């Protein structure tokens, strides 16, 4: 996944060091790809930064969820948790039974470093990879999301309905709200879920 980002960043004129630094400092999958694509198309720095703010605002919600569930934490650890919380680490954490902060940090920091490593590998081997291979790598993040969501959908009909409603909502809203659609759909979807999903399922530790 980091490889795909590196491809766009290099094309947009990033040096290899800048490409890798961005993965380390920003650490936001989609946000970085959007930033690099916008830089490639010549957008102003302000426009790119504002778009990133909106696109990455979901991490505010995600790190709140994670921090609400981890055990034995303190403020310095919380700050690290905040930085390494992205879609993948968040998804894996919230749908697993383990709420130890150490296990979470282990998984999430590994994911962070491999994202940086992916960018480094991308910088080096980019020219060697055929387009169909880099394109096929683009699916991996979505494959992970689908794989994590499927068992819950299979097990619980109310969750399945909620997922469907949110998906349709986001497809519709993305035509009007653009980048804001993701966070709006996530929050509105959860609000709808308050009424259509029974408390028992969520409190049994599956969420």
């Amino acid at each position, binding site marked *: 996944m980091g490889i795909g980002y590196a491809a766009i960043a290099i094309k947009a004129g990033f040096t290899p060091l800048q490409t890798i630094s961005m993965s380390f400092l920003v650490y936001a999958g989609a946000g970085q790809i959007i930033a690099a694509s916008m830089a490639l198309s010549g957008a102003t720095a302000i426009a790119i930064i504002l778009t990133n703010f909106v696109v990455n605002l979901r991490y505010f919600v995600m790190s709140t969820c994670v921090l609400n569930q981890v055990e034995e934490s303190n403020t310095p650890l919380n700050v690290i948790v905040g930085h390494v919380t992205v879609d993948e680490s968040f998804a894996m954490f919230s749908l697993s039974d383990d709420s130890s902060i150490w296990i979470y940090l282990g998984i999430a920091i590994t994911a962070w470093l491999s994202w940086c490593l992916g960018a480094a590998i991308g910088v080096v081997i980019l020219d060697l990879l055929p387009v169909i291979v880099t*394109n096929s790598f683009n699916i991996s993040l979505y494959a992970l999301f689908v794989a994590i969501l499927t068992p819950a959908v299979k097990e619980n009909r109310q969750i399945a309905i909620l997922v469907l409603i949110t998906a349709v909502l986001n497809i519709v809203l993305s035509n009007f709200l653009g980048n804001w659609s993701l966070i709006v759909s996530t929050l509105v979807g959860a609000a709808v879920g308050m009424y259509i999903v029974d408390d028992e399922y969520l409190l049994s530790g599956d969420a």
Partner: protein
Amino acid sequence: MDYINLVILGCALVTFIPRLIPALFIDRLDFSPKVEKFLNLIPYTALAALICPGVLTVDNQLWYIGLIGAVVAAGLAWKKVPLGAIVILTVVVLITVYSIVPFF
């Protein structure tokens, strides 16, 4: 400052601040059961919104590439294939599809 450095530092800042706020204040918050339930629902809705319609733009020219990938991943997950294997197999299937597409 160099344009690209400005972009990187600016993005780092606006991404980190929203992540930092919950880290600093979470200990002082005691969520009510309703808020807990809301937070517990977020993973499902966030994933649903991340997948749709984003998955259809995996390939900007061929929208069905992403759809095929999603269907393959869902099918494998339904059969309880482990996560890592699902990701790898889905990528392999797409490489195969890309190799076949030019023949149609």
